[in-house]
């Protein structure tokens, strides 16, 4: 932020929004009120359990099965999105074709749709007698009521995050850069690998993190398509809801704390990876 003053520089540079002190104060208050406070309450609630009770809840085989599904399917879905979201963003940025605006608008649909509706829609399509399901069934592929269905739902939910973060980054890769690389003798793969990918990688990682985070927290769409078989297709958020329905608030809080911890670690890892990638680029350029 630099403002070039024509007149003598005032002591405090004027800005559109009120001063730094006020905004920082508001930011801190806001974050505390809606993020930190509830999280603290969650931890406090869980803390009412003794250590052994706590471990009993979180290491219950059913709970562990649900972690595996929740985090595994989210990671898988985010990975799928990294590939196909990139392709979609590429298509939208690089090509002009009829109906482009409609497709562009459709990308945001999962944002707007109540997740339960997505879940019901997906179940209809992928159920054994559904439009797509009936053709997959003879091939021995069951989508609805298996972990595949969960992944499909999470992919759908996470897709707009990926596309919308990669799109602006791709727009930054000017055609000139590719042209320059081409005249210097680079082939298509080389151009993609050395020029395009490094430029969009930070955005790709951000998109991945967002899609992953959204997947872990997803509830509405998954519960319809997963079938909710304990140990097999039961996600952690559902397990928490079940505990709540049994008025086991402490157990629910304990599971919540575990989710919180794992999500935090994973997002932190992605952020560190990003920072490391940036440093690497600035230092050696490869």
């Amino acid at each position: 932020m630099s403002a070039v003053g024509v007149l003598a520089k005032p002591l405090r540079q004027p800005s559109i929004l009120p001063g730094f002190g006020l905004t920082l104060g508001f930011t801190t208050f806001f974050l505390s009120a809606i993020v930190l406070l509830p999280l603290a309450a969650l931890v406090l609630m869980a803390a009412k359990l003794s250590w052994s009770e706590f471990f009993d809840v979180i290491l219950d085989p059913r709970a562990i099965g649900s972690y595996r599904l929740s985090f595994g399917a989210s990671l898988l879905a985010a990975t799928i999105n990294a590939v196909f979201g990139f392709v979609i963003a590429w298509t939208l940025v690089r090509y002009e074709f009829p109906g482009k605006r409609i497709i562009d608008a459709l990308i945001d649909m999962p944002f707007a749709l109540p997740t339960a509706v997505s879940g019901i829609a997906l179940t209809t399509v992928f159920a054994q007698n559904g439009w797509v399901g009936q053709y997959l069934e003879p091939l021995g592929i069951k989508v609805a009521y298996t972990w595949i269905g969960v992944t499909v739902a999470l992919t759908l939910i996470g897709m707009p995050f990926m596309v919308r973060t990669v799109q602006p980054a791709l727009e930054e890769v000017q055609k000139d850069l590719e042209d320059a690389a081409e005249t210097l003798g680079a082939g298509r793969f080389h151009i993609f690998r050395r020029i395009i990918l490094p430029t969009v990688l930070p955005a790709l990682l951000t998109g991945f993190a967002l899609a992953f985070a959204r997947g872990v927290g997803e509830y509405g769409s998954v519960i319809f398509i997963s079938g909710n078989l304990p140990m097999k297709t039961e996600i952690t958020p559902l397990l928490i809801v079940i505990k709540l329905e049994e008025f086991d608030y402490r157990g629910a809080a304990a599971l919540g704390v575990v989710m919180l911890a794992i999500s935090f670690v994973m997002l932190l890892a992605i952020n560190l990876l990003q920072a490391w990638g940036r440093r690497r680029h600035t230092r050696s350029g490869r």
Partner: protein
Amino acid sequence: MSITLDQVTKRYQGVPVVNDVSVEIGEGEFFVLLGPSGSGKSTLLRAIAGLTGVNHGRIALHGRDVTHMSARDRGVGLVFQNYALFRHMTVADNIEFALRVRRMKRADRVARRKELLRLVALEGMDERLPAQLSGGQQQRVAVARALAHKPEVLLLDEPFGALDAKIREELRRTIRQVQRELGISTVLVTHDQEEAFAMADRIGVMNLGRLLEMGRPDELYTRPATRFVATFLGAANLLLGRQTKNGIHFGAPQAHLLNGSGRSHEVVAVLRPEEVELAPNRHTLGASYLAAGKVEEIVFTGALERLRVRLTKGSEEVQLARADSGDDAHLEVTRTQPEQRAFAVKVGQDVAVGIRRVHVLPTPLSSFTACAANETEVETLSKHPLLVELATRMKTRVTARVEPVLANGSKDCSSLDKHFSGAAVISSQPDSLKSIECLLTRGAEEVFVLPPNAASPQRVLIHWADEAARAATLAVSASLLRHVSAEAVYVDIKPETTPEADRPQGMRALLDARSEAQAVHGLEMRTELRFGDVTGELLRRLSESTDQLLILGVSQISGLAERFGSLLAAASRSPLLVVYREAEGQS
């Protein structure tokens, strides 16, 4: 020849953006492609680089045909206006990019990099990122990167566009120095004529996709062949004058000149602002007197003083090719410090205007005279979109003239005024043939027949009825085609009865015509040889689409009706330009 372009054409959605460009660039030559934006110069450069395919023509680098070769295999170095550096790589990695692609050994890479950085005066900047460099330094890196793989040619696409004046100057010098040191053939694209003058061994001026003229900077400046080059390279006043046996006359036609034996014809003359002399009165002028004027504006620009002088007394006689602002004729004048000291002028002062030197353009189309039978028709005709478009592009004027003779019925041509300025223009009517004959017999050399709704042509068909009309037809065609973005097709038609053995001869004549057009007028045209009835074949060609214009050259007026009657009657959908020059030996 290190770069050879042969009839290169590139179309976007049917519209030619590069139109039949042929050029040969020599070993170690610094060639500048100069033109306004949208003239096709950058597209042409991209075509040479292989980043854009061509629809027609051939591109060769050092004798190797690369027309269908991809950019990565052509081995050219390309520098972009916005540098196009890889921002996530250091200077070293940017420069070594091409070497890495070629799997060069590390030690060799480093050596080459050091050498290039020395060449562009950026030693020690190896580990910087592009973002840490100034614009000028970034462009130096881009130049070094483009030279890394020892390309056969260096292509520069407006490389100084994003830099400020001082840095630009410095970088120009560096690039020119590097280019000389390496002896590498270079093509630079720019819209800045000063830059072109400063750097070029040879300049090629492009407009509307066509390469209009090529030559050394000084040649192009002092002896341009086209209005566009005359006005684009430096400032120019365009004057209309009459060329007679006794020299050029500026001013209204004088009776005695018209009665003289030979035809006098209208010419376009280029008067450079620095060739104008101002003096207190006619007798103190050192140069030949042109007119009286009043100083309207003086702008001090340092070394030079720039003036606008309105021609007062005698301005109705001196005809400027285009009086663009209002009706007043203005001359642009520049004067050096010594001139200013010798005769200081103030705004509003009356002065005598003299001209030291003019250059007459060899263009046969000087201006247009719209002719019709009454006021309203003349008015409509001189506002015809195609005519207005042509006149604007040619920076010339359309004179309106009422000729009752042209009305239907009365066909006594002798009452027609014998004096014509430039090409006569009439609107297409059932009896246009009569009018054409009429105008030609009374001294018009070109008659342009315009259908009411004719649009800018995409293709210009050229045909001459006999060899005597060939030179003039080519000259007029070239003059017209410089101002429209259409492709030129010369159609030769031989009788169906031509024996098989003689047919190759027709082909040879065709190629001769093509090379003449290219050599004399710099006009690139496609050629077609057809066998059959002349009128029938031309009609068939014209009926293919409506956006065609036909240029028909004749050297005899008698027999026009018999030979082309049906063509002239039927061709009312397409514009037609009849070029007439008396055959030698006739009187």
